[in-house]
């Protein structure tokens, strides 16, 4: 059953790959018609050159598939990358200082400050939006207004249904940016690395799968536990890595607020919290500051403090040293296979003794990214001394 689900996620991707290979169009020369992740058919009269990103974090994908300068066709973005993953932003800034400087901050596409005038002023010819905001974009009339102004909108998705939509989203970006080759290569890498985990865990029967509680943005707020994911995003990553995601059993929703008492009663085998370098935008967070500038000594202290929070400290998972923390932004990037690999390694250390997610991530950077890997992206709390 699980195997079937996994396969079905890849079928459209493989089909799309085949279509692309067969057609092999010269994208820069003529009109381009494609179906975006929202299921909308979009026609562009010519290949876009001045693209606005509804989220700065779309650069994770664009950089991964671009052969040269990933900023080449981008005129502006939202400043979420700067605010919530400053480590990655500084990587981009170091590699492409002029381009990072040049980026116009269009703000939140759904806010008043993302004005159609500013889009026209920047002479933009494409706006890329995140499918999680499809409803808002329709409701506020953003798509319609941009359409009237002659600026097409294309939806991609690396978050809402991350594991299903990443491959088609990459293919769409490849076509839009004229980087089909890079997109295909990355897709191959993605499938190969995902398979390293799913091929093994598909054999594991449901009743033998460890129970995992995902804590979304652990330490973001100090007085409330917990935000979690249903069978989406990190919840789905856990399932693909061979775990049973606790919140998936409660509701079929993207985001679920779970109670501390429920966690205590469920007595999970593992707890996985997400963290990123939020401290610059939000100094009061107690999260692990994972990312390209992650400092193992700092994070070791932070994760132990998280594991020792009231309610958590007596959990079996914490006592056994199975409180983990992982880079939050994998949840909105095409390289979430790294998360899947690392989670699988946590859940089944013996089965995946030979799998080295750090090596996968390093290879990925060497092959696809415009900068080198660095920092720290995951760690586990130390088991209490007693």
């Amino acid at each position: 059953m699980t195997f079937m689900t996994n396969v079905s996620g890849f079928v459209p991707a493989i089909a799309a790959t085949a279509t692309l290979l067969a057609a092999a169009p010269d994208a820069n020369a003529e009109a381009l018609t494609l179906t975006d992740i929202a299921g909308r058919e979009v026609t562009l009269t010519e290949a876009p050159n001045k693209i606005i990103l509804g989220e700065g974090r779309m650069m994770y994908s664009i950089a991964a598939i671009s052969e040269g300068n990933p900023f080449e066709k981008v005129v502006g973005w939202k400043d979420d990358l700067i605010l919530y993953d400053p480590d990655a932003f500084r990587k981009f800034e170091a590699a492409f200082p002029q381009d990072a400087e040049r980026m116009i901050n269009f703000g939140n596409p759904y806010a008043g400050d993302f004005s159609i005038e500013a889009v026209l002023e920047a002479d933009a010819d494409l706006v890329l939006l995140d499918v999680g905001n499809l409803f808002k974009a329709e409701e506020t009339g953003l798509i319609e207004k941009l359409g009237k102004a002659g600026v097409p909108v294309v939806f991609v998705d690396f978050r809402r249904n991350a594991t299903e939509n990443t491959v088609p989203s990459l293919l769409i970006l490849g076509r839009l940016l004229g980087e089909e080759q890079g997109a295909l290569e990355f897709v191959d890498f993605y499938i190969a690395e995902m398979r390293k985990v799913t091929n093994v865990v598909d054999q594991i029967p449901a009743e033998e799968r460890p129970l995992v509680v995902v804590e979304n943005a652990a330490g973001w707020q100090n007085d409330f536990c917990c935000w979690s994911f249903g069978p989406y995003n990190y919840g789905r990553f856990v399932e693909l890595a061979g775990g049973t995601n606790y919140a998936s059993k409660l509701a079929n929703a993207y985001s679920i607020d779970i109670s501390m008492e429920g966690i205590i009663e469920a007595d999970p085998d593992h707890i996985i919290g997400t963290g990123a370098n939020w401290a610059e935008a939000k100094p009061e967070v107690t999260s692990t500051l994972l990312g390209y500038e992650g400092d193992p000594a700092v994070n070791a202290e932070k994760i132990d403090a998280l594991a020792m929070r009231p309610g958590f400290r007596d959990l079996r998972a914490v006592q056994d040293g199975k409180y983990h923390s992982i880079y939050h932004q994998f949840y909105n990037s095409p390289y979430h296979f790294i998360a899947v690999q690392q989670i699988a390694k946590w859940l089944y250390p013996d089965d995946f003794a030979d799998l080295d997610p750090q090596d996968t991530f390093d290879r990925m950077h060497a092959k696809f990214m415009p900068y080198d890997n660095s920092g720290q992206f995951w760690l586990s709390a130390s088991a209490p001394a007693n």
Partner: protein
Amino acid sequence: MPTDTTPPLTAQGIVTAYRRRSGRRVALVALAALALFTTVVIDVITGPADLSFWRVAHVIVNPSVATTKEEVIIWDLRLPVALMAVVVGAMLGAAGAEMQTILNNPLADPFTLGLSSAASFGAALAIVSGLSVIPGVGGLFVTVNAFVVSMLASLALFAFTRLRGVTPEAMILVGIAMLFTFNALLAFLQYGASELQLAQLIFWQLGSLARATWEKVGICMIVLAVVMPYFLSRSWALTALRMGEDKAAALGVNVSLLRLMVLAGVSLLSAVAVSFVGAIAFVGLVGPHIARMIVGEDQRGFLPLSALAGALILSGTSIASKAITPGIVYPIGMITSLIGIPFFVSLILSQRKRHWQ
């Protein structure tokens, strides 16, 4: 006070009738307190973890018998939430009751007068822009912001009452204007918010008991212990005020001073309550109406019963919010209305006479 009761003729008769009314009032308050006690007990024994009534009672009476798990669940998680529901409900009920009294308007409550939205805006300011109204309060700055902005809103309302010739109706309108102003400002902040900030904001706007701690329960109890005795000590004057400003003045009540002092108390109650649990509509509005329909306008019964009714609504909500899907936390603000409305409507329908005179 209902005017259609036939006055007894003899002095003895008057005394008997008075005693009967007082006795009935005390009995009703005691009954409500008993009902509240029952809901608190139910609140504490329900939850995702399956703990029996006796076991919970045992752990509460003698904490040393508890396993670590039971201790955390009962002492750190369930009891603070259950008690927070009671104290916050009582604060909102009492605040609503006195607001309706001094403004002489059945629609007045901390929510409709914008104090809750002010608190939400203060919290949003902290959550979205990281702006602390009072520097150096550390991790508490969301709560402190909410409290300060809410108190500022009360002060504005306060200052307005000092203006010459301002009627209670005008004050209500100013309150409603504030409600819309703060809601607009809040919407403005929401536009710029990230996904996580939005999730945090929604919990603020819909209210949540999940952040309850013993410290917060303690602070609420202290505020209640300060404000309630003052309200009760002024109950004859407040009752007189409900008969009309002129009549109260004729009885020797300094009406504008009374309004000012009571408004200060109401502001404190509601600002503290909303800064801990977020905006919870309905409780401050309906609690007093339920009390009024049961005991009438005499503050000696009306005030305690309003507080108890508010506490009952919120305590019931706390139970219901856990029962929907065990393990999932729902914002309570959206459930308060669903719990309180059927009861409220049935009271309105069963009441023959007009309950607001």
